[in-house]
């Protein structure tokens, strides 16, 4: 009966996570439109079903049945490949996030995460980094000035935010002493890490905004300068895939913040998965809230901010954390 533990359960978990993320994406688009609308004193979509709950289905059908347009001047191979290249890493990154307390069914202990690998923290960083290739190559293969500029801004952005992001997580690892996600969550049983690492949290969240290309750092799109940036030449379901990648990235970053800084599924009274869901939802709300509040920064300002402020701040945070941990351990 070994194959149940090694093959069947992980496969089921993978399918559930993938489907869950796709449904999450669909309803995140609705939630964002409704929340954004409320910030602007509107109602948002409310015609398709009660509270507009069928709006994502209508949008999906529309995207699928649109004509498949491939412009003549594009690099066809890359052009078709890139939406997938953006989308797949976004889903993959969720694999290491524990969504609840391990459960026992018929003698099998099931951890509520697809894979509890010992370099759990490195994995989403590495995979999410790949997602940028979809955007960069998508802009390049479109063979269009606006797309190319959007892609260039993505590259400028990625070399700026990755360093402080990684450094903020290093100080977190020094505190917890493990890279394993389940270990990090267990460490937060008494106290969420946001209390011990408030600066690390802020740095990670700001970099998360940049990583998911969300306002105020949505330079790859910059719709009032670059039409639609890297996805200008895309339409129909290929555009929808880029869109999906952005929203699933948002969900992943929110889930990571919830897991790493807000205590993951740890919490009193309510079941673990519900705590995880609440924390992720709060972070997603903050994403939309920031979008509704702040204007877009200039992309050289982001580079300036990341290299000249966030990186030194993350280094100082790292040194102070290391020193304090060293002193406390004697």
């Amino acid at each position, binding site marked *: 009966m070994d194959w149940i533990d090694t093959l069947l359960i992980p496969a089921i978990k993978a399918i559930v996570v993938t489907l869950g993320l796709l449904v999450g994406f669909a309803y995140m688009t609705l939630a964002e439109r409704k929340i954004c609308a409320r910030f602007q*004193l*509107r109602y948002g979509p409310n015609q398709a079903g009660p509270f507009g709950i069928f709006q994502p289905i209508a949008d999906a059908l529309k995207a699928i049945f649109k004509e498949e347009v491939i412009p003549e001047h594009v690099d066809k191979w890359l052009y078709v490949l890139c939406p997938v290249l953006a989308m797949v890493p976004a889903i993959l990154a969720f694999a290491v996030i524990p969504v609840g307390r391990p459960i026992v069914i018929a003698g099998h202990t099931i951890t509520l995460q697809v894979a509890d690998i010992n370099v759990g923290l490195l994995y989403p960083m590495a995979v999410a980094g790949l997602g940028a290739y979809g955007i960069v190559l998508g802009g390049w293969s479109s063979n269009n000035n606006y797309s190319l500029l959007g892609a260039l801004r993505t590259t400028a952005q990625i070399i700026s935010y990755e360093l402080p992001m990684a450094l903020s997580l290093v100080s977190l690892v020094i505190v917890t002493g493990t890279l394993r996600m389940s270990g990090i969550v267990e460490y937060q049983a008494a106290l969420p890490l946001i209390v011990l690492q408030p600066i690390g949290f802020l740095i990670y969240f700001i970099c998360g905004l940049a990583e998911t290309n969300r306002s105020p750092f949505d330079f790859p799109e910059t719709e009032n300068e670059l039409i639609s940036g890297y996805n200008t030449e895309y339409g129909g379901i290929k555009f929808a895939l880029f869109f999906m990648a952005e929203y699933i990235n948002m969900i992943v970053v929110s889930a990571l913040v919830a897991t790493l800084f807000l205590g993951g599924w740890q919490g009193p009274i309510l079941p673990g998965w519900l705590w995880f869901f609440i924390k992720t939802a709060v972070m997603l709300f903050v994403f939309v*809230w920031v979008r*509704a509040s*702040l204007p877009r920064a200039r992309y050289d300002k982001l580079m300036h901010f990341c290299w000249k402020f966030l990186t030194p701040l993350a280094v100082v945070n790292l040194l102070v954390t290391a020193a304090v941990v060293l002193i406390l351990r004697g």
Partner: protein
Amino acid sequence: MSIGNVVKGFYQILKAMAVTLKYFFTKPLTVQYPKEKIRLYPRFRGRHELQRRPDGLELCVGCGLCAAICPARAIYVEAAENTDDTRFSATERYARLYEINYTRCIFCGFCEEACPTGALKLGHEFALARASRGDLVMGKETLLQPATPHAIILED
């Protein structure tokens, strides 16, 4: 980028986000139009309504002053004599043809002011979309109908 600037910027971002959050909890201004009625002020100027006397005779005497003052030249009036058999208005003449072209009308209300008998009033009807341009030239039979706008008329 001094520390003071960063702290100030951070404070200002938080302040901005507090402002937007306040609006998040405010009731939306949207009027869900076909379900809810639009609120209109009494002096709102919509489609014209030709008035009648209490005994049913038309007030319009076909003088054409409205057509003369109309800055958009939207009104066309053709007068004719009343006879004892066919009487439309109390006076000598009446408007045989009275047409307003709503592709031209700018709803300025000059016609209402020019009218010597008070026959012409700009009502509250605002839903004037039609399927063809011809339908937007409205004749007497339409203009004599009192409108029932999908709106709440507010007190002045």
